[in-house]
């Protein structure tokens, strides 16, 4: 017993955290426990509102002013109970032994101080060394986190660094004092997949070198599978399941975990193969939590006992905990998820369906304001080439997925097509008609035919209009229905997006994120459009809600024969919903093909990097990462030749820098823009899908 305790870095038991809200203390986290060993990366997974950030703050003893750790909680850090540690003690721990990496690195750095200075301040204070030594240490650390040109970074201000570089600086800042405990709160959530892959790789290597224990908070099970040794699944402030990563991903025992795992789209699986499973409903709010199983309202296996008795956290095997009355039945395989509503999606691609939209050599250049220097020398600065010659076509009832990192011009392209932004050149044809530049010039008929679903459901609905008013407007305006007809139609649309009739009278403030996005989708479908542009429609939603929205989109498409232009940075999501994919980089397309083929070689080196960067939610697939260095170059100074040559891991030589690559086709509708012949590419690239299959 004594030995065991010595080995533990962090021992948390019966941790209860409450917040004071409008005079009442309300429990946000109850009965939390975990044991962290040195050198271990412990994943904490949960949806928003599950209490994961609250736990992180409590572990640091840094709860907000209205929060408290309740009596009886045990929080042992290296043998000391921190529950009653005074602020001075905590401060000395924070300087060296316990460090925190926040989600938003940009906000964590002081914008008015050079990076190097901020770092040396910490080192000088924490390690008691002089400035010169500190500087040496900082530069060494910058090297370890693979910052290019550490000396230069040292002299820069935070705003001069990209998001990925800022995150590295913050990680360097946390690790430089050789902390015992590192708490990372969604450190890669705001980053591109490619950057995320690099950062995860970095964290894994840095932690392997030392004995730091890491609590890694995330909502992304893929990241957990790639990085962590153990994982703890949180729901509504309670631990649902706690297991080693391998065990959890091979068999989960809690219905919530199973639901989560099943709801993640996996690369190579599309809507035509199988629909995603989703967890119905949404998590309870702090005040709604009952004295029963917290998951009771959403659980597919619910029995009477679940309503009456709150399940305890049971130790079911060596190092495995689960909070469910029925885990034994789940283990024995006696319970299985019923496949929700049999969805009839056409399992075959209809190659014959007509093309409803064609985009021809579309370009959008943003002029750059002349600086005084330029004006004096009479030079015109080059414009920002956000979209630079794109050809696309979309067939009726199909989905075209558009992927690329941020800064590749996806959103600009969608705004040009919908008419929110004027195009510089090119043609857009809808149902054979040439359509005009902007919304103002287009006829109502054309407007009704293209609609849009936005990324952020929070801002997509007018907070002062009820759901009925929101959906009624396009019905009356674009379909010309009378008020009575429109009101009837509103209810039908609500039903189509799986919302009850009562929702018509509600205001956006009373809806959850997923519900809001359903209303947005209903509004988009109200005018009976032929094409809906979906700009990252699920990226702002929680995982358990995401899959339901994706299924909804798939079903509505099937019922109405609507086409989608689906934009996302998440390849797994796009891959699931799309029939065809287009990969965009720096304003141009680099690969076009069917969604199925995209996850199989040959692919463009850029696509290859994107695909390999997906954090796959299975711990076996950790190899074969292709890490892209740096960020997308400025669209004002696009690289010569192949635009991707500056970051391409498969660059073959001068030809890449001098000549724009040709489109190579395989004769079956798959096109790649590269100097390397397709056969050679196929040989270079190992198929990823076979690996997933064997896993």
């Amino acid at each position, binding site marked *: 017993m004594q030995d065991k305790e010595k080995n533990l870095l962090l021992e948390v038991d019966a941790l209860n955290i409450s917040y004071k809200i409008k005079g009442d203390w309300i429990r946000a986290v109850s009965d939390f426990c975990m044991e962290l060993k040195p050198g271990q990366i412990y994943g904490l997974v949960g949806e928003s509102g599950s209490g994961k950030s609250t736990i992180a703050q409590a572990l640091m003893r840094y709860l907000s002013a209205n929060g408290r750790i309740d009596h009886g909680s045990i929080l042992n850090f290296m043998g000391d109970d921190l529950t009653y540690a005074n602020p001075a003690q905590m401060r000395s721990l924070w300087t060296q032994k316990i460090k925190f990496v926040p989600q938003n690195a940009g906000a964590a750095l002081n914008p008015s101080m050079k990076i190097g200075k901020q770092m040396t301040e910490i080192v000088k204070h924490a390690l008691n060394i002089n400035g010169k030594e500190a500087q040496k240490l900082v530069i060494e650390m910058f090297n370890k986190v693979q910052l290019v040109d550490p000396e230069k970074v040292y002299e820069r201000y935070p705003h001069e660094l990209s998001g990925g570089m800022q995150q590295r600086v913050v990680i360097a800042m946390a690790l430089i004092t050789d902390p015992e405990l590192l708490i990372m709160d969604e450190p890669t959530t705001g980053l591109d997949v490619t950057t995320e892959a690099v950062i995860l790789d970095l964290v894994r290597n840095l932690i392997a070198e030392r004995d730091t224990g890491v609590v890694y908070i995330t909502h992304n099970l893929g990241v957990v599978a790639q990085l962590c040794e153990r994982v703890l699944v949180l729901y509504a402030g309670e631990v649902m399941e706690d297991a080693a990563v391998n065990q959890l991903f091979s068999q989960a025992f809690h219905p919530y975990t199973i639901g989560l795992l099943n709801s993640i789209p996996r690369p190579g699986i599309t809507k035509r193969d199988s629909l995603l499973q989703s967890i119905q409903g949404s998590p309870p709010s702090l005040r709604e939590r009952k004295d029963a199983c917290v998951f009771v309202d959403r659980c597919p296996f619910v029995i009477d006992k679940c309503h009456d008795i709150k399940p305890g956290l049971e130790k079911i095997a060596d190092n495995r905990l689960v909070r469910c009355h029925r885990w034994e039945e789940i283990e024995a395989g006696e319970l299985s998820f019923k496949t929700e509503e049999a969805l009839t999606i056409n399992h075959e691609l209809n190659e014959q369906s007509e093309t409803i939209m064609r985009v021809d050599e579309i370009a959008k250049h943003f002029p750059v304001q002349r600086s005084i220097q330029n004006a004096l020398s009479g030079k015109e600065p080059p414009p920002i080439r956000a979209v630079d010659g794109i050809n696309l076509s979309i067939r009726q009832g199909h989905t075209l997925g558009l992927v690329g990192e941020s800064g590749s011009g996806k959103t600009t392209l969608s705004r040009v097509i919908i008419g929110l932004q004027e195009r510089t050149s090119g043609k857009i044809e809808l149902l054979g008609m040439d359509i005009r530049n902007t919304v103002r010039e287009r006829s109502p008929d054309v407007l009704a035919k293209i609609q849009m679903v936005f990324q952020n459901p929070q801002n997509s609905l007018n907070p002062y209009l009820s759901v009925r008013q929101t959906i009624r407007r396009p019905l009356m305006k*674009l379909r010309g229905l009378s008020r009575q007809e429109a009101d009837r139609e509103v209810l039908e649309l609500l039903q189509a997006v799986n919302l009850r009739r009562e929702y018509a009278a509600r205001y956006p403030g009373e809806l959850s994120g997923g519900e809001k996005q359903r209303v947005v989708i209903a509004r988009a479908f109200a005018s009976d459009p032929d094409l809906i542009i979906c700009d990252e429609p699920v990226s702002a939603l929680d995982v358990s809600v995401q899959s339901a929205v994706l299924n909804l989109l798939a079903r509505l498409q099937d019922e109405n024969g609507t086409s989608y232009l689906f934009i996302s940075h998440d390849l797994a999501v796009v891959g699931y919903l799309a029939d065809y994919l287009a990969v965009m980089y720096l304003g141009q397309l680099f690969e076009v093909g069917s969604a199925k083929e995209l996850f199989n070689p040959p692919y463009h080196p850029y696509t290859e990097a994107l695909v390999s960067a997906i954090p796959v939610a299975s711990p076996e697939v950790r190899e074969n990462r292709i890490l892209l260095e740096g960020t997308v170059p400025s669209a004002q100074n696009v690289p010569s030749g192949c635009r991707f040559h500056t970051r391409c891991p498969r660059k073959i030589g001068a030809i890449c820098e001098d000549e724009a690559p040709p489109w190579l086709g395989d004769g079956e509708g798959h096109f790649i823009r590269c100097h390397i012949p397709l056969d050679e590419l196929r040989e270079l690239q190992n198929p990823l899908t076979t690996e997933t299959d064997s896993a």
Partner: protein
Amino acid sequence: MNNLQTTSGRQIKAMLKFFRDLMSQPLSAIGTVIVLFFLFLAIFGTQLAPYPNPNDQSHDVRLEPTINITKLQLGDYPFGTDRLGRDVFSRVILGTSSIFRTAGLGTLIAVIFGTILGLFMGYSGGLIDEILGRIIDAMLALPALLLALVLIGIVQNLDFEPGTWQSSLGDNAVLLVIAILYVPIVARVVRSTTLDIKTREFVEAAIIRGENASYIMFREILPSVIPSLVVEASLRFSYAIFLVASLGFLGFGASPTSPDWGYMVNDNRGGFYALTPWALEYPAMAIALLVIGVNLMSDGIKRIVQKGD
């Protein structure tokens, strides 16, 4: 119909909740009570004042103080009388309605036109916004009181047939001046909020639907502007009271016989102050109290509105 009822019921509920929030904090509750008290005086002033005619004077009771020292008892005139024998108490009460009318109505007009202008500038952007913005900057560059004096001079010297509606402009010069002065200030606040709101996706969704500019401005954007507009309006109101009093003090706007607080302060300063200090002090206190009250209330409104965000 049912839909309409629930909407208005909602609004009433929201307003009640707003009032409760306002009263929940001591300072804003005090401010609100002060403002409501003066509003009550403004409405029922003629019924409440002992001498409903502000110019009722009696030569026998000139220079009467609040407390009669020789008799050591409260006098018949709670605030005393001035040098002409007019009841200061009645005059202060009767002055409330004019200050509320001038400052309140002036602010209201400024808010209405400022909102329209601000929405228009913010939503159209570009050259229009640039030009109007410069004009506003130019207006705001001048001290408010100076600009007010110039504008009053212009309005009062406009030569109109007596009895026509234009001639009433002269009578309401101060009200008009307040409206003109505060339109640009309100417009600026509305414009900046509009700039923020118009980038939201729900506005883009309206554009995609082909809605016209006025629908987008008034139906989609305006509701989100209202919270910051309410804060600004309450703040403007307190400044307007201040300005009305200042102009009254300088002898503009109010006719010498009307019970204007500012004018009363001016009228009773100098040599008369030694004789009847109360005739100056009570109206001055009324001004201060009302301004403080409005300010406290507007702080409370701001707190509620910002918390709501």
